[in-house]
């Protein structure tokens, strides 16, 4: 079963609007990552937030983490048509020697219309 579940499954907005996607997970985490996948392409890492962080920013991305609720949110501000993609959260245990064994959520399909 998926470690993370994204909500909503699909989101359609107008260019310039903000998009918010949520992720819930089941077990304790060391970090949580967000990835983007354009249609027909591989996943691309967007941002990582550690379990002792509550909020992190990267450009137009803002990620929050609430470990007490086992949830995270990804906010994309001033969306652009190029942001149209599927967005996944991912968590997993730290492997001995480093790296994560990541399990991905179900994804949110974002469509940004002109």
């Amino acid at each position, binding site marked *: 079963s998926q470690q993370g579940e994204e909500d909503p499954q699909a989101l359609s907005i107008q260019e310039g609007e903000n998009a918010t996607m949520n992720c819930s997970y089941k077990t304790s985490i*060391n970090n949580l990552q967000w990835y983007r996948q354009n249609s027909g392409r*591989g*996943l691309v*890492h967007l941002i990582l937030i550690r379990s002792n962080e509550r909020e992190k920013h990267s450009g137009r991305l803002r990620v929050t983490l609430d470990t007490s609720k086992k949830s995270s949110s990804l906010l994309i501000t001033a969306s652009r048509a190029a942001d149209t993609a599927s967005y*996944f959260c991912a968590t997993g245990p730290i*492997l001995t020697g480093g*790296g*994560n*064994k990541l399990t*991905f959520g179900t994804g949110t399909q974002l469509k940004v219309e002109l």
Partner: protein
Amino acid sequence: DARVTQTPRDKVTEMGQEVTMRCQPILGHNTVFWYRQTMKQGLELLAYFRNRAPLDDSGMPKDRFSAEMPDATLATLKIQPSEPRDSAVYFCASGPGGGGSNTGELFFGEGSRLTVL
């Protein structure tokens, strides 16, 4: 520009045939992962390696799937015999592993789309 390279990008085959997918991880990365993506199941972890050694392949159907790393520049995923239910996009991802500044970020290839008729 370092990237994970996967071949083939697309493969159409008939049930019962052997399929081999190849992956060249980013040079210097010591962890390699195989994922399968379908509409129904999403992204599933099939197997992963560290320093070429298989650490976990519990996500793979053992009777027909096998994953290997003959050397540090090549990972393979083989299906024999293939079945229609194996139709999916198979992704390879590599990560730097290690401690210190390691973030656990994975770098994905573009995937191999497999269709088994």
